[in-house]
């Protein structure tokens, strides 16, 4: 149903007013996360679920992709996270954590499960590291730089990587990350600092090319 701004309509003095004028205030307000979660928990409302999926899909995918480094695995992890949300919607307590925090916690756990399962593959991958890294003097293309950064981030310890991704790429505060990862803001700060130091060491040979 088309809607016209109330202000424009009221300016037309003497014009015939429709019997049931539609005002902006009649438009349904954007449902909050809490409303949607309530509908999922109580009625298993798929529309509410779809709204939440559209709201968080890209954020969670970006996090999972940077945690896992593989698109297919990242998509699978995000799907698993959403299905957990669907199944355990009742267990979310809005007073304890925001949905954002809760979802990142679920996603982080899911990604850790995936990483645990493929640990052996990562070890094999590790063997090729030296041969893939070019010499410090070599100028590399931007694409190649991106690949090396991705590789360096993927080789960080799990917790360092998660803290760095949530901080740098998702822009979460240390306090929020602490709530997601079950650590104090101070220790999150330490994790991020160590992650950055490791990255600097691993990518130092690229500084000449920048």
């Amino acid at each position: 149903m088309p809607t016209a701004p109330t202000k424009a309509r009221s300016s037309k003095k003497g014009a015939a007013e429709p019997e049931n004028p539609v005002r902006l205030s009649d438009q349904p307000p954007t449902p909050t996360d809490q409303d949607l979660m309530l509908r999922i928990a109580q009625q298993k409302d798929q529309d509410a679920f779809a709204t939440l999926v559209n709201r968080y899909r890209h954020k969670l995918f970006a996090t999972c992709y940077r945690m896992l480094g593989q698109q297919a695995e990242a998509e699978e992890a995000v799907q698993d996270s959403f299905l957990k949300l669907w199944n355990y919607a009742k267990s979310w307590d809005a007073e304890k954590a925001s949905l954002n925090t809760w979802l990142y916690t679920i996603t982080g756990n899911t990604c850790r499960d995936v990483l645990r399962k493929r640990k052996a593959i990562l070890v094999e991958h590790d063997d090729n590291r030296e041969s893939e890294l070019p010499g410090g003097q070599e100028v590399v293309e931007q694409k190649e730089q991106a690949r090396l950064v991705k590789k360096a981030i993927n080789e960080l310890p799990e917790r360092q990587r998660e803290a760095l991704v949530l901080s740098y790429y998702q822009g979460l505060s240390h306090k929020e990350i602490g709530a997601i990862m079950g650590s104090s803001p101070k220790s999150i700060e330490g994790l991020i600092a160590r992650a950055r130091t490791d990255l600097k060491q691993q990518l130092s040979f690229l500084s000449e090319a920048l």
Partner: protein
Amino acid sequence: MSKDKNKTDMADAQLDRLMGLYEVPELDADAFNQKLFSRLGQDGAGATNSDNQHIMIWSRPWRFAAFTVVVLLSAGLLFSKDDFEKRDAGQIQTASVSIGVEKTVVPAGNEITDVDRFLNEIIDQDIAVLEYSVAMNTGPEKESATSQEEDQDMPPIDSFLDELLGIESRTL
């Protein structure tokens, strides 16, 4: 000191720039939603991969086989134990008669059927015949060697059984 600080800041900036190169590929939202909702519809509650770990036992044949063997063994043990307990309780008892004939005794607590009565009588008759043979000092092996005279001295078996069981036992 300030020089060092500048150097660190520079390195941080360089790192930030490098990290900015790490882009995320485009996600096909429609395909993603379609897959997600098909998974949601498939198993109603929408089991996740980690939830599926609980039913992995059914999807691995060797685990299922092992599980079946354990169940069968347990069932076998239970049945054999049950059987022993029944025997101990005296539901099936065998009493051996001194002359080597086993007599089945149905316990008093159980209902005695006509078949049980018939079998018991047959057994009783067999025992009686053997007891008679022993009493007359004649075994089955001797029977083939008995003389005509001895046969004549021995009372007829029918009359003996009639005395023992009654004339109506012939109709059984």
